[in-house]
């Protein structure tokens, strides 16, 4: 099985390393590889260090891998900043010898210097094709099929800009030719196609597109949002496509308004959603409480970034769980989900709409920066097979109808505004009676309504399919994880089990309500329990401790960069 991690670094901008990385990714996918990408961005809009890492394998890949096997440095800064990441045992450095001066110590790495800049400037007469020259070099060195690379370029620019295609093709060929003529391969890395896989129906999307597609598949009617990194791309996709699909996307004046529009639309019967990141979620807290109190279905996607406050806007953290679970004054239980990969981003968004409708509640979906900006080939969803849930409706006119009827399961049928003949009702954020009328002097009724909302949400923990298990039936150690680290955790668990340590992992995608029975069963199957998280305080670990008679340990990381499998492996090894 081939498994190759390539990282490209250079200045963000027109000859960007990001574009190069994207073409490597799409080529690998067409060649039937699984890929896993990881991008970093500079704070500057233009300029600054941008990187794009792609792991490709003709088998399955779950994570970005450990350090890159191949590092391509397009300028000095990228070499200075990234060289320490290159795997020390024989990693390969490809660099622009026109602009990069190497250190004395290569740590046993193989270095290929290529005059990327001068090939682009002199042969192609267009400096900005430097990244395309690099692609030719990579193709020649590691066997990434040049024709497929060229086809990807053709498909991307072809219609709009045939001149660009010609120029880029020339640059790739020049890079390829120079390498074949001048470089003697001294490393053992290589790319392998997987023709079988190439025929499977897949779509290539990043986490943002996956969420948006999921929402569209769930028949989203109204999207309202305010731009924020790394959530904006969801809005951009919907701006483009939602009208075509019969829905409406509105960019509001702020996040409070966005959730206000969403709740208003939901009241009127629409499936509605907003997406934001931490600062926006903080602003939505009052509206969230209203959604819980008024029992309105709504989906709120939070693409988490580094916090607190403006924090690390282009970095990755899973630190908004507390806010999602506890956000809102008073007790306001709601459903909180966390997709773990790009496939989940699509399907869990559909699931979020279903849960929102079924339980008549705001559902928060926690994704993160790494998923929002990571491209992956996932199985094309079978839209015909998607099951959608609609809120329990009161369809017939019934003079005794009560909007907030105190039912056994806490779910009261909804008579939608517009329904003929009423009984008319007004919903309110005040404590109310079964009809919806303010009942602010009746504490017992207020408590009964609190119980209703509480038991309704609590019962959602028995929904199935919101977790995944890895490893053997029993373990010396059990790891509970959540969020985007699943892939790395999966890989670490496989390695450790392969090395003879029995480790199980339970990866949760529903965090509120907490599936306590499931966690109990898992805990019973292991000797020791630890929670793995990408935040400072161990937010899930604290919630588990708060709700259950368990005292798991904690492994955490909070420097804005996802775990590598190696890091997890080392940390887990230390626990057993």
């Amino acid at each position, binding site marked *: 099985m081939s498994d190759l991690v390539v990282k490209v670094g250079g200045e963000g901008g027109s000859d960007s390393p990001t574009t190069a990385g994207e073409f490597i990714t799409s080529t690998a996918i067409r060649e039937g590889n699984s890929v896993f990408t990881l991008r970093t961005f500079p704070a500057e809009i233009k300029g600054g260090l941008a990187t794009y890492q792609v792991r490709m394998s003709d088998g399955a890949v779950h994570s970005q891998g450990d350090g890159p096997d191949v590092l391509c440095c397009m300028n000095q800064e990228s070499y200075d900043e990234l060289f320490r990441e290159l795997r020390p045992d024989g990693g390969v450095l490809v660099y622009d010898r026109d602009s990069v001066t190497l250190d004395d110590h290569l740590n046993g790495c193989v270095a290929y210097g290529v005059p990327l800049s001068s090939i682009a400037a002199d042969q192609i007469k267009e400096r900005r094709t430097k990244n395309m020259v690099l692609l030719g070099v990579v193709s020649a060195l590691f066997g990434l099929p040049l024709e497929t690379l060229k086809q990807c370029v053709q498909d991307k620019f072809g219609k709009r800009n045939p001149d660009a295609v010609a120029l880029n093709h020339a640059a790739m060929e020049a890079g390829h030719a120079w390498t074949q003529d001048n470089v003697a391969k001294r490393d053992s890395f290589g790319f392998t196609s997987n023709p079988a896989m190439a025929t499977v129906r897949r779509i290539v999307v990043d986490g943002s597109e996956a969420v948006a*597609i999921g929402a569209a598949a769930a028949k989203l009617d109204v999207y309202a949002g305010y731009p924020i990194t790394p959530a904006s791309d969801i809005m951009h996709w919907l701006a483009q496509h939602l009208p075509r699909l019969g829905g409406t996307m509105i960019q509001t004046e702020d996040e409070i*308004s966005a959730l206000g529009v969403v709740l208003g639309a939901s009241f009127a019967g629409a499936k509605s959603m907003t997406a934001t990141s931490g600062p926006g979620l903080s602003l939505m807290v009052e509206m969230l409480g*209203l959604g819980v109190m008024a029992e309105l279905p709504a989906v709120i996607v939070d693409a988490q970034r580094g916090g607190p406050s403006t924090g690390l806007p282009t970095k990755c953290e899973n630190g908004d769980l507390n806010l999602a679970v506890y956000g809102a004054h008073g007790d306001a239980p709601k459903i909180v989900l966390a997709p773990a990969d790009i496939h989940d981003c699509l399907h869990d968004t559909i699931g979020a709409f279903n849960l929102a409708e079924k339980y008549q509640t705001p559902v928060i979906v926690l994704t993160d920066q790494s998923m929002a900006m990571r491209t992956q080939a996932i199985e094309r969803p079978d*839209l015909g097979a998607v099951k959608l849930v609609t809120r329990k409706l009161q369809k017939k006119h019934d003079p005794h109808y009560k909007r907030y009827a105190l039912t056994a399961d806490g779910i009261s049928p909804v008579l939608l505004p517009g329904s003929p003949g009423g009984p008319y009702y007004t919903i309110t*954020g*005040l404590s109310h009676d079964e009809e919806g009328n303010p009942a602010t002097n009746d504490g017992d009724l207020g408590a009964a309504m609190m119980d209703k909302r509480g038991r309704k949400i609590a019962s959602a923990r028995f929904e199935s399919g919101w977790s995944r298990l890895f490893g053997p039936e029993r373990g010396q150690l059990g790891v509970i994880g959540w969020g985007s680290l699943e892939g790395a955790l999966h890989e670490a668990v496989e390695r450790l089990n392969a090395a003879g340590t029995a480790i199980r992992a339970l990866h949760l995608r529903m965090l509120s309500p907490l599936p306590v029975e499931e966690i109990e069963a898992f805990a019973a199957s292991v000797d020791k329990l630890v929670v793995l998280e990408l935040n400072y305080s161990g937010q899930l670990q604290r919630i588990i401790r708060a709700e259950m008679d368990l005292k798991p340990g904690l492994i955490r990381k909070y420097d804005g960069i996802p775990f590598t499998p190696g890091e997890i492996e080392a940390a887990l090894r230390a626990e057993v």
Partner: protein
Amino acid sequence: MAQTMTAGSEPQVRKAKDYRSDLDPIWCPGCGDFGVLAAVSEVFAEQQVNPDEVVIVSGIGCSSRFPGFLSCYGFHSVHGRALPVATGVALANPKLKVLVVGGDGDGLSIGAGHFPHAARRNVNLTYLLLDNEIYGLTKGQISPTTTDLSLARKALSSPHGTWEQPINPVGLALSYGASYVARAYSAQRKELTSVISRAFRHQGFSFVQVISPCTTFYNSYKTMTPRVRPIEEDHNIHDRNGALMLAYDRKHVWLGEFYRDPDRPTLTDQFEHLKQLAVGGRPATLEAVLDRYS
């Protein structure tokens, strides 16, 4: 106020009182808001509005208790957020007639950031701002429209007076690009009813500042009555700059219709247009979109 109009057996002609719910208003005796409630019921009766299709949205305040007192659908949301919520209702189901009712604090203080945007987007709704120049529900603090200093001094939050320059709601609505702008006075029921009626018929964002005094904390009836004056017949209702000058006139508080632009496309028009435009004849499907990602 689960008042039922038994389906199929509605009265032939609905009277104003048929639009009232069973809930008794919690307002103080003499509160200006009673007049507005009566006026809205009369407008509904006059236009024989179908209550099935009306949604009244409000924030929080004495005036924001409004929706519950009428027999149609309502959403009493949170302080300052009636306009976003109402925008959501309007977008979700363009068949619904959306009425927004709220106070000066609700709309011009905590909600001040939403007003410009609902107006410039021309959301299809009628916004009645019940202006009593005070925070009624929280027991009488000054609001952004408080003008009378001697009254302001009695407010618990400004015992030594205030120097803040009050906001002119009609002036703002015009600056924000509202497509219908009017002012009325709850003490003049006939004119109030007629203005609300026209606002409710307007397609797009119609704004009515209703002077609606708070008899408990800021009883401005006495000082207001001599200041108001009906807008002259010759005022050109399509001239926004002229309307602005009228709004900023210092001598009188003009009542009536300041401005109307019946032709501006509404937010609903825009989105319906987008849907048509995007579909371009052939129905778009998600499958077709997914093809691009394959």
